[in-house]
């Protein structure tokens, strides 16, 4: 009887330890969200999104140009990064043994681990120094370079999960290999790929270092990707390190907006996954 009580006691203790660990793991996110909401929510109003920054020292103003800038820069990065990443992932999964696939996978892993500031410097060297001006497009290029290995890896892992019997069934119907890859395999894994893409987008939306030497940031509203552009992470950086109280207030608010954007993208990614499972019934 005693041994039973002891076992149950240890079991409860361990469950308790795990529960505490869960709380500790979730705590940082809660602290971040909590701090941002407390410090930043007060400054969020419609003006915040619609107004332009005002001269230093004055109050009010918003980050409209940063919102537009982030949308454009991240949008362009996605246009470059998603097709390349997906295509590379599909190739590596469908032609697994080939030398090109092995090399690509290795390169992608290295790129995944490269510090984002290094990627920014590379984009500076390749684009900004050559063009002799900063531009949003250079920022997009840098972000795309970060995005490609992420999208590629997710796509590849998902496609590898597709059973070979499915491919054989398509080939037996007379499908050529490339069409089997695109029509059948990709269609099957599309919800998972969408999830991967959304998560990759969420990551690059918050990247600051690559944008420091490429998009540079700007006080003005711009839609020309060939010019320096404002972006939300850059705004946070500029305002947070500035000397004015007003700027600090705006920095908190911008940080809150940024994390809400990331959160929304992540939630969307979760919803996409859930849809797929419920259809399987």
């Amino acid at each position: 009887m005693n041994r039973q009580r002891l076992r149950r006691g240890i079991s409860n203790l361990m469950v308790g330890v795990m529960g505490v660990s869960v709380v500790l793991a979730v705590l940082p996110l809660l602290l971040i969200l909590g701090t941002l909401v407390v410090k930043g929510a007060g400054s969020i109003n419609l003006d915040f999104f619609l107004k332009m920054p005002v001269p230093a020292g004055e109050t009010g103003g918003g980050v409209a140009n940063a919102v537009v800038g982030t949308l454009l820069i991240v949008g362009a990065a996605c246009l470059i990064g998603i097709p390349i990443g997906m295509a590379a992932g599909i190739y590596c999964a469908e032609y697994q043994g080939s030398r090109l696939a092995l090399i690509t996978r290795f390169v992608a892993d290295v790129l995944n681990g490269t510090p984002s500031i290094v990627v920014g410097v590379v984009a500076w060297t390749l684009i900004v120094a050559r063009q002799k001006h900063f531009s949003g497009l250079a920022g997009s290029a840098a972000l795309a370079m970060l995005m490609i290995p992420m999208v590629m890896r997710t796509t590849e892992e998902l496609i590898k999960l597709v059973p070979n019997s499915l491919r054989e069934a398509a080939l037996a119907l007379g499908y050529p290999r490339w069409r089997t890859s695109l029509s059948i395999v990709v269609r099957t894994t599309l919800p998972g790929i969408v999830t991967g893409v959304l998560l990759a987008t969420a990551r690059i939306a918050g990247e600051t270092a690559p944008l420091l030497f490429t998009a540079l940031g700007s006080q003005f509203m711009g839609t020309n990707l060939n010019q320096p552009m404002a972006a939300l992470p850059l705004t946070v950086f500029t305002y947070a390190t500035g000397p004015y109280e007003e700027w600090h207030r705006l920095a908190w608010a911008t940080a809150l907006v940024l994390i809400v954007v990331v959160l929304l993208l992540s939630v969307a990614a979760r919803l996409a996954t859930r849809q797929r499972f419920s259809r399987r019934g």
Partner: protein
Amino acid sequence: MYGKFTAVKGVSLRFPVNRVHALIGPSGCGKSTFLRALNRMHELSIGGWITGRVLLDGHDIYAPGVNPMQLRRRVGMVFQKPTPFPMMSISDNVSAGLRVDGRRGRGAMAEVVEQALRRAALWDEVKDRLHASAMALSGGQQQRLCIARTIAPEPEVILLDEPTSALDPAGTQRIEELLFELKRDYTIVIVTHNMQQAARVSDTTTFFYLGSMIEHGPTRQIFTAPRDEQTEAYITGRFG
């Protein structure tokens, strides 16, 4: 053959049209490999190739100018595990083989889909939910869906690789009944490790053992008076 390894040798067979031919033998005897050589599917395995010829209507399907993909539209294959395409509806699954040909036209396709489903004895069960996901069907229904998908492009030959081994007895019986009707329009070659099934459904039978063709003849003869003693040993259950 795969690389240097000879999986099947010394086979010489004729399959007359509109009959069911069974390939039997213990596991690993090469019957599936042989079947896959009949529509050039074994080429998709690493290092798969053949010596000799496979003639369809008198033309060698391994001749240099032959397009394997077009060949596979004339010689269809159904696999052991039912594999409906997961993200597609039932009717999209059936018409999947048609879309490779470039045949468009919604109306025409819907007709072909219905025909194929009727011939696969699945129409009555799915006619009200043609746009539902194919994954909602039972194992036996999925296999019949795969059969419908294979016959929609009007092949001449249907190859079946142990089509009922993943199904329950009721599903198995329905597929076997289906084969009786299908042979009116198609030539059927079926690999099975179930001897009783071979005895039930086929007109001719070939016995494979260790990569060689041991005996070939009318089913009744193989199962009642086999000429080779290895055949007899297998039939009577002494091995395999």
